[in-house]
């Protein structure tokens, strides 16, 4: 099946930069109430050189959930750690567009890096939320840290959930 590529399985088995670290500015805890996936995520921002905007000095996490949500947290850390905040929001925008494209957007490796591994997830609406959980936590943490995340806004509605009675 095309959902579980080697890249996703690798990240799920060996999540990169996992574990909660000090120092940090904000910690958030997000859950997917339909399935109980949970993530705790911390961000640590520092001012970049010459007013270039903040840099993500550290993003650390503790993820408990399915392979898609754990791998997504791993890719988030790998792609965003140490980069200017604005660049990480661009990555998010491209990844979000790919995940909510129902499979029509294969993803741009230049923009989303290992995130292209999640292109197959877009064809399974119930799993899109799993892939977006770490990113929702990340955006929430940035907002709570007082960062400007307006450039992350997407026009696509959020993914449907798989809840029922």
């Amino acid at each position, binding site marked *: 099946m095309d959902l*579980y590529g080697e890249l996703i*399985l690798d990240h799920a088995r060996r999540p990169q930069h996992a574990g909660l670290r000090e120092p940090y500015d904000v910690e958030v805890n997000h859950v997917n109430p339909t399935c*109980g996936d949970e993530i705790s995520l911390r961000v640590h921002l520092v001012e970049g050189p010459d007013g270039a905007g903040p840099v993500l000095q550290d993003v650390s996490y503790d993820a408990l*959930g399915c*392979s*898609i949500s754990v791998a997504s947290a791993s890719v988030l850390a790998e792609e965003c750690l140490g980069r200017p905040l604005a660049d990480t929001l661009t990555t998010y925008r491209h990844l979000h567009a790919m995940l909510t494209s129902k499979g029509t957007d294969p993803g741009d490796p230049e923009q989303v890096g290992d995130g292209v591994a999640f292109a197959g997830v877009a064809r399974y609406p119930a799993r899109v939320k799993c892939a977006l959980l770490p990113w929702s936590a990340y955006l929430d943490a940035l907002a709570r840290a007082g960062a400007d995340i307006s450039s992350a806004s997407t026009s696509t509605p959020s993914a449907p959930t798989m809840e029922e*009675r």
Partner: protein
Amino acid sequence: MTWGRQAAEPFGTEELARIRADFPLLARTVREDRPLVYLDSGATSQKPRVVLDAEREFYERHNAAVHRGAHQLAEEATEAFEGARETVARFLGADAGQVVFTKNGTEGLNLLAYAFSNAAAPGALDGVDEEWADRLRLGPGDEVVVTEMEHHANLVPWQELCRRTGATLRWVGVTDDGYLQDPSAVVGERTKVVAVTHVSNVLGTHVDLAPVVAAARAVGALVFVDACQSAPHLDITGLTTPESGVDALVFTGHKTLGPSGVGVLWARRRLLEAMPPFLTGGSMIEVVRMEGSTWAPPPQKFEAGVPMAAQAVGLAAALDYLTALGMDRVEAHDQSLVRHALAVLAERPWVRVLGPTDPADRVGAVSFVVDGIHPHDVGQVLDDAGVAVRTGHHCAWPLHRRLRVPASTRASFSVYTTPEEIDAFAAALDRAPQIFGVAG
């Protein structure tokens, strides 16, 4: 009810083929032409053609607003709706006057819970005799008892009732192997309500209601039963007999081969008479003046607005379908499926089944975990093979916490489920350890 279990036979191969032919959806394919293996009937069952036909017939021939209108169609619609109520009553072994149509099981449980907080309003219990008025008065010092294996629908409304009234919520625990602990350890002098499921939607545990009823009766507490997972599989007429000790039960149409949008509340007549209404508006009134209103007698008192007539008619067709199959045989069939599922999973030591290991104590469902593979991923692998199961906490989060698993995978059954489908499920499950590289 277990007396039918020994006598009745499960459906044979030919009978099952005939039953399956009644369910149009089962013929479709999924995920690139794979035959559908639908093992999610505990979430919602598929519907036989007679149900779809009954709804269509109602809309094509008799549609009108029930209990209104001075014309022939209104008469026919009302007759169809009230006829459906009588069918439900027969299915329950009860009187039609004790049957309230709700939109689903959740609404029925909320109707019961809100009766207590609404009873606190001035004048709400006027005309109710003191014994019953007292049973509906809930406040600080009083206790509501649920169990740790409840679906959120039979937990959250009671949490909220306690929050509104100041009463205390207590719960009967669950053993490691998925049985209810001794209810008499929790039910006490202050208990006014005991709300319990008949069958766990996760573990399939067939709850022994006798000790629950005995503990509640000893202290004069009301007993409410969530029959959503038992009504599709068991003869539940024993719950409504005068000696059952059950004061009210709910079940839902869409899990019982019927349409969505219709559920049933059955309650003792005196309880129905004593409880204040839940939703108010048209249909449920006796006299309305600008200053205030009085209520119609039950069951109309609890059916505000134009009711779901077509769905009620569809539900009646579903219950007639089950009755024609014979609830003793429906139960025997479910037992044989549960036994088969437990047997094929026992051949796979990497699968850990949750709940009772004795199939005789189970109804309708088998939930399990595969260590090292999240249930979502298990469900995805099964889905890829055309096998539909439920994954997650199945609206029973506290139960999963109690069993120390974040989530589980559930295979659940209905009258159309075959042993071969369970074999196909097991074969598809074998791919999960291969894909995720855990010992299998």
